[in-house]
Structures are given as structure tokens and as C-alpha cells.
């Protein structure tokens, strides 16, 4: 059963993508699929109707939700491993709040400035600001924690909690100052949505994920040693400081990217590693890659539900991840009650 985890998850993902692209407001037919692959014979027509919906909207969106879920799942697995704490997730470090805070400031403050920005730039302005916010929070977190509580992983977590509170306060202030129209665009960041998916983002994120895995896999076994505690990890030869800063940078980039384009999507980063650990055990060499697959599957399901339950309207995906994740988490807790002190 444990050995089957990876094939089962991959199979589930493929099946999920196949089902997800069938669902939606516009029905698609076999002819549309042929059109996607240039076999429909309808020529210019292929770029409209069902084939257009498939190629330009549904396929990139399904792939994007899988990739975003994978990067959140990976960031969650890395964060929990770093803090030896099953409750940690990138949200707790203030990464998501930092990104949303920067986006909120951009929406509210930039709107008041008498500067006109070209439309093509405007599309990238908010994600860039959010990405900058996520990285900014992460690096200030690292600096502050180094300065106040050098070497302590618990200190890093508590610093993250404090930064999170500050970022949440700034978001609150922006909400208070915002106009009705700005509020609507703010709610995108706080509830999350995958509606911005397109092929450019899919390719970008796929490259980013490959790069991240390439960076992670040499030291993912060393992360197991962190479970023994920081001092024992150092005694068995793991450079905890270096590992810590590498993990933080990676979590900032992964979580920052997904928050920048999709807003705050809760619970996936927390629950995907949990499910994997219950399934295959706590070895980080398995938990990290399988959390990517699991996160991708979970977000794909949540996003498909979010865009199909109330056609033609779309419910923010963050609502569904929390609705699915909360009860799921309670079930996991019930299963682990014998082991919790």
C-alpha cells in the first residue's frame, strides 16, 4: 500500500485533470478535443467554441491548480519538517500575509497616486508586489530571528507569528481605507482564486517547481535529522543554520509565487503533508514529493468544485479548501489522539 502511494497519486491526478476539464459552463465534445490537437479539420473554427475553452481556459487552469497545489504542498512539507511541528505551514510564517499585505498596499495606495501605468504593466504589478512582499517578510523574518534568537528554531516560529500579526493589521488598515471597488479586488487576495491561470504562468510555475525539487532533493534526507532536534542534528553532521536558510528561501519563493497569482489558499499546505505522513510514514524523502502530488490533487478537486457548484458564478477556492480541509483535519486528529501527549 505504501509503495503504491506515488502511482496512485499520479493516476489520481491524471484522472482528476481529465474530469476537471470536462466540467464547466460550456459543454465540450469529442470534436472539441480533436480541435485542440488540430485534428478537427475546422481550421480557424478550432480557435473558437469548445476547443478554445478547452485549450485556453480549462486545460491551463487545471494544470495551474495542480502546480499551485504542488508548490503549496511542498512548501508545507518543508515548513513542518523545519519546525518539527505538524502545525506549521507557510501561512504561519507570515509569508502569505506578507504577500497579501503588499498587494493590499498596492491596491489602496497606488490607486491614490497620480501616476498612470500602462495596462500591460498593471497585469504584473500586483503579483510582483505580492511576490516582493512574501520575500520581504521571509528575509526580515530570518534577519530578525537571527538577531533576537540566534540559532533557535522556536524563536524563528514565534518571530513569524509576530510578523504575521503586523501584516494582518496592515491588511485590516487597507480594508478600512479602501473604496468599494478596491475592497472587491482585496477579497481576491484574502480568499484566493485560480481564475488568473494561463499558459505563461503554467510554464513558469512548472519550471520553478522543477528547479525547487532539484534544489531540495540533495538535502531532503538531512531534514529528517531535524526531527531529532537541532542539537542532535548538528552532532550527526547536519549544518542546521545553512539548512534553515535554504528552506526558508525555498518556502518564500514557492509560497510567494502561489500567493502572488492566486491569493491566500489556506489548509492545503497544512493538510497535504499530514495525509501523506499518515499514509507512508514520516520520512521526508517521501513526504516532500508525495506532498506535492497530494497538494496538487487536493487543490484540483477544490478548484473544480469552486467553479462548477454555482455556474456561472465562481466561489473563491479558499472557501472550498477550508471546507474540505477542516473536517479532514479533525479526522486526522482523531486518528492520532493515542499518540498526542
Amino acid at each position, binding site marked *: 500500500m505504501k509503495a503504491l502511494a506515488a502511482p496512485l497519486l499520479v493516476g489520481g491526478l491524471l484522472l482528476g485533470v481529465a474530469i476537471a476539464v470536462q466540467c464547466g459552463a460550456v459543454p465540450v465534445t469529442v470534436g472539441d478535443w480533436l480541435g485542440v490537437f488540430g485534428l478537427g479539420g475546422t481550421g480557424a473554427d478550432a480557435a473558437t467554441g469548445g476547443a478554445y475553452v478547452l485549450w485556453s481556459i480549462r486545460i491551463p487552469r487545471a494544470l495551474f491548480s495542480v502546480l499551485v497545489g504542488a508548490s503549496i504542498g511542498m512548501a508545507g512539507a518543508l515548513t513542518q519538517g523545519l519546525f*518539527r*511541528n*505538524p502545525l506549521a505551514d507557510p501561512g504561519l510564517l507570515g509569508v502569505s500575509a506578507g504577500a497579501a499585505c503588499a498587494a493590499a498596499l498596492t491596491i489602496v495606495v497606488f490607486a491614490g497616486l497620480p501616476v498612470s501605468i500602462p495596462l500591460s504593466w498593471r497585469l504584473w504589478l500586483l503579483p510582483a508586489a505580492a511576490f516582493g512582499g512574501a520575500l520581504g517578510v521571509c528575509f526580515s523574518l530570518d534577519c530578525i530571528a537571527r538577531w533576537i534568537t540566534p540559532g533557535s528554531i522556536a524563536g524563528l516560529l514565534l518571530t513569524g507569528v509576530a510578523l504575521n500579526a503586523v501584516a494582518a493589521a496592515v491588511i485590516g488598515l487597507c480594508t478600512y481605507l479602501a473604496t468599494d471597488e478596491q475592497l472587491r479586488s482585496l477579497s481576491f487576495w484574502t480568499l484566493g482564486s485560480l481564475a488568473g491561470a494561463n499558459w505563461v504562468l503554467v510554464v513558469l510555475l512548472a519550471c520553478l517547481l522543477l528547479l525547487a525539487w532539484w534544489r531540495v532533493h540533495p538535502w531532503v*534526507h*538531512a531534514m*529528517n*535529522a*531535524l*526531527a*531529532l*532536534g537541532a*542539537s*542532535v542534528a*548538528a*552532532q*550527526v*553532521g*547536519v*549544518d542546521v543554520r545553512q539548512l534553515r536558510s535554504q528552506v526558508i528561501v525555498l518556502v518564500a519563493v514557492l509560497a510567494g509565487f502561489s500567493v502572488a497569482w492566486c491569493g491566500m489558499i489556506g489548509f492545503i499546505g497544512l493538510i497535504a503533508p499530514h495525509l501523506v*505522513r499518515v499514509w507512508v*510514514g*514520516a*520520512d521526508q524523502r517521501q513526504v516532500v514529493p508525495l506532498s506535492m502530488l497530494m497538494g496538487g490533487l487536493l487543490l484540483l478537486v477544490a478548484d473544480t468544485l469552486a467553479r462548477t457548484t454555482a455556474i456561472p458564478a465562481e466561489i473563491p477556492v479558499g472557501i472550498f479548501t477550508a471546507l474540505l480541509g477542516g473536517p479532514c483535519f479533525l479526522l486526522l486528529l482523531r486518528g492520532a489522539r493515542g*499518540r498526542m501527549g
Partner: protein
Amino acid sequence: MLMQTLAHPTVLQLDAAGIRLGTKSFGPFSLHISVGERIAVLGPSGAGKSTLLKLMACECQPATGRIWFNGHLFAAWRLADLSRYRAMLPQSSDVAFGLQTDLVIGLGRVARTHDTGLSDIVRASATLAHAGHLLERRFDTLSGGEQARIQLARVFAQLWDAREGLILVDEPLAALDPGLQFDLLDSLDAYAAARGHAVVAILHDINQAVQGFGRLLLVKNGQLVADLPSSAEVVSALESLYGIALRCVCDQQGGLVIAPLRKTVRRPT
């Protein structure tokens, strides 16, 4: 005899090494540890035994003085290289996420990039630590004594193929039943002797220290108050170390047993 002592090179050398933790200062400590030596560290609670052990493990850099390990300054060692020659058994063992026991034991060798025969070493270490039957179980489902055996097996695995290294033990056996304590100390003895590893152990049991270790380091108020070979003559030093009266008893086999006397017993004499 003298020739033999000279032939033994130094594993660890503390050169007036001291450290401040909060408002308390520890040291300066100066001592040599030779290859294969067996040293017990004794002292009252809070005297600085664990701090001394941390300095020896190079877990914290000394604020003053220098520490040499195998002829090189400690600061010059890479953590990964150091871990091949120096292992430490911590006082408390807590493993997050309920890792599998064989993974925990194997983590002793995590710094080696190409480790052939890892599973054999894990199995052999577990057997030596009386933990062979505990493999492939979750660490957090084990009892305290079983967890201590797994941690000891991890230390065994870490220095399994090393020679003339250093094992530091921070009284992890204190909470175990006497039979298990002796079993594990015997395993540690056999393991260290076969490989020439020096052993430095913090102990609370005076008899274990005097009977099983050749040299005693007595620590009080953050200072090294005595560094002496273990024999019947250590009794007066131990009395002033703990501030108690001790009585020596010889058993039928001629072995020395040191028994502490309670104040209520002492007063009439």
C-alpha cells in the same frame, strides 16, 4: 606502562576553554583525553557537567581558550567530518513526527553521501544496543527505556566504522532499570573498546563511575575541581564534591562499594 601512555595520542584537548551562559560562567577547563580512555564526569545538579560536555562536543564555541580535536582546532572542523569521529548521546530524546526506529538509527550516518551497507550497520547497531526487536516501529510508540536503546543504537551506527573517536554520554541511563543500565553500559564498553573510542559519560551513580571508568572529572560551580584516577582514594574528594558523608564497603569478591550516608544516620557518629 609509561611507554603505553605516551603512545596514546590525544583525542581531545581543552586549553583553558570557558563559556558564559546568561549570568553564569563555566570554566576555564583544561584537560587532555587520550585515545580509548574511559572518563566519568561527576558533580551536583547544575554544576556545569552538561556544559562541559557541550564544549567537548563542540556544540557551542568557547568564549575563551581553545579546543583541539584530533590535532585540529575545533572551529576548523566541518560538521559533517566531525560527525564521523564524535557522537553524543543526549540527556533527553524526543523525535518529532514518529519516525521509524530504523530511520532514526540510520540518521546517525546522514552526513555520509555514499553509505554502502547502511541497513547492515543499522541492524548490527540495534542488536548491540539490545534493540533488535524494536526495528520498524514508530519511535513515539516506544517506552522510555526502548527510546534510550534506539538513541544508543544511533550513536553506535554513527561511529560504527570509525577508529579512535569520541563518544559523549549525558546521563541518559539514569531513568532506566538497573538491569538495562548494566546491559547498555556493557554494550557501550565492548563497542568503544573494539574501536578505540574514548568515552566521556556524565553519571549520577558513584559506584558505576568508580567501577566502570578509569578516570573521574569532578565538576562543581562551573569549575573542574578534580581530575583523578578512580580508586578508593577518591572518596574524600567525592564527599566534598557532594557535601555528603560516604562509607566504603568491600564485598566478598573484594570489589569496592561506596554507600552514601543520610544525615539522620550520620548524626550519632
